């Protein structure tokens, strides 16, 4: 199952384009993340794939067939809403059975067949014992699993998830993330999910599509988009990145001293002994950031920048990061872009 989106445009009003010419294609069985800040058009794109929004221009192809004019009802694409949108007056069982009962008469299943379809799904999402509960009596994580089972019940050609972990607290979120990845690998179902959380996208997805202001900035594996960002926006959105000012360029990025814009991630800044090569700076402050140490450095002109070093490194570099120590800064890796606005 592959979805291809060609030149998709969706406008709200004459000037506002939620998505503005997006072309991308999913691969069979992959888990694709649509990542972007709020207002980037990622949810609109997801809804357009589902048939919940119609495009103003462009096409949507499902396995090569033009599905642009099909309604949501005809597309057979599973959709899990951000707030789950469970049917509040129906039990967990009936929520999951809804799609089976809504079938046209000639495809209608018997009560026993419905049970045989619903119960294994409830087992899959570990909700079997809650079959008779109403959605109001479930926790957020449980509701999400019910919503997932409900979407899977129609044997969708593609599964779409809108901010699947957005409404959950951090611990549940991490558990569900791992569980969802395992489930995806077991089902082998092509899945597209929307998130604004870079970490989530990089950790979970096979490929990440980064959207900004309705346009696709880059599409690639987590390693590709993180290690070789295509645009300054991608570099800055996937973790911190310092735009290297021209006056520091030669000293900080000695191997690429000219041309375009250079960006450096905090963990790619190397701390060298003072007096040698590199940009002279003074350590002002250090702070723990989990597994890493954040080092705040003051340049000679008074500006401050941040570097990040691994905890193990820190021991090695101990003498070098005490506040007040002089160091030299050099970029281990820099990302270069043509002159950006």
């Amino acid at each position: 199952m592959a979805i291809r989106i060609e030149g998709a445009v969706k406008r709200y009003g004459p000037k506002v384009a939620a998505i503005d010419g997006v072309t991308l294609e999913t691969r069979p069985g992959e888990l694709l993340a649509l990542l972007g800040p709020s207002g980037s058009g990622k949810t609109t794109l997801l809804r357009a794939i589902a048939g919940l929004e119609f495009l103003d221009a462009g096409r949507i192809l499902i396995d090569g067939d033009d599905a642009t004019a099909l309604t949501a009802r005809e597309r057979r694409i599973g959709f899990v809403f951000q707030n789950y949108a469970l049917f509040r007056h129906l039990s967990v069982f009936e929520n999951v059975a809804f799609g089976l009962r809504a079938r046209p008469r000639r495809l209608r299943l018997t009560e026993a067949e419905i049970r045989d379809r619903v119960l294994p799904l409830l087992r899959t999402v570990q909700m079997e014992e809650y079959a008779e509960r109403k959605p109001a009596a479930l926790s957020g994580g449980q509701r999400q699993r019910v919503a997932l089972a409900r979407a899977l019940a129609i044997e969708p050609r593609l599964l779409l998830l809108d901010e699947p972990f957005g409404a959950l607290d951090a611990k549940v979120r991490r558990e569900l993330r791992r569980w969802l990845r395992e489930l995806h690998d077991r089902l082998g179902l092509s899945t597209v999910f929307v998130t604004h959380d870079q970490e989530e996208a990089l950790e979970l997805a096979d490929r990440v599509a980064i959207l900004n202001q309705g346009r696709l900035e880059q599409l690639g594996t987590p390693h590709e988009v993180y290690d070789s960002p295509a645009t300054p926006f991608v570099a800055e959105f996937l973790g911190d990145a310092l735009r290297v000012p021209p006056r520091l360029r030669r000293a900080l990025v000695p191997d690429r001293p000219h041309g375009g814009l250079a960006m450096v991630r905090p963990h790619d800044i190397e701390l060298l002994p003072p007096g040698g090569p590199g940009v002279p700076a003074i350590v002002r402050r250090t702070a723990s950031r989990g597994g890493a140490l954040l080092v705040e450095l003051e340049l000679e002109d008074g500006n401050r920048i941040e570097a990040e070093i691994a905890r193990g490194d820190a021991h090695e570099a101990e003498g070098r990061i005490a506040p007040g120590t002089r160091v030299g800064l050099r970029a281990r890796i820099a990302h270069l872009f043509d002159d950006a606005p």
Partner: protein
Amino acid sequence: MSGHTRPALRDPAPLAWALVGFALLWVGVFLVLPLVVVVTEAFARGWPRFIAALQEPDAIAAIRLTLVIAAISVPVNLVLGVAAAWAIAKHEFYGRGLLAAFIDLPVSVSPVVAGLVFVLIFGAQGWLGPWLQRHDIKIIFALPGMVLATIFVTLPYVARSLVPIMRRQGVEEEEAAATLGAGAVTTLLRVSLPNAALGLLYGVLLTNARAMGEFGAVSVVSGHIRGETNTLPLHVEILNNEYDEVGAFACASLLALLAIVTLVLKLWLERRMRLRAGEGS
């Protein structure tokens, strides 16, 4: 919630008592007193006279006609109201605001005017009058006209009680139903309406109360033929004009009873809706 108000929000005692007293007096004089009068007058000559007044053939005919009119106009407006509310609350289309405004029209139009409009259209001198006469169809001064007038004045209630509830619930569940392959009718019957069931009941209750109690519009199109085109409210007026006070008040007490039952059901529904809303958030 604690029972007592914060001191800063508490009015000085005399003012508070004056306000409460005034409100009670108001309700007492304008709402409770008339009800008490209706009931005491109805029973002024004792039970037997009361029962006799209701067993009179004209009274029975009026009660039956009132029930028939309600039995036709309530289901019709149930269907119309659900359709209108669903369109207004769950869909975007050109002219939605206009539709919402038109639904409310019968509330602001005097019922007498509503009745006259139907006379103007279907009456002997009306637009369709000659045609109807040629085909021997009677609408004005007959049941069809009274049903039409009642449908007109009770049109808004179902839609008005459904729209706010349906709108508050958003369209996500409907969208979910669509992605699961459900068509419009399935979605309406299995998702939108069950979610708004209390609002629907509330609308039907108000529609019914108004349909049974309507005077003005029905009066214009009825023709006041005793035993044939008299509804209960019209019958009350006739008896009253004839100085049959026990009869008038006996029939009026039935209408008052309807009002009280409606009120109790309405309070119960409102409570349930508040509880439901609390669960949701």
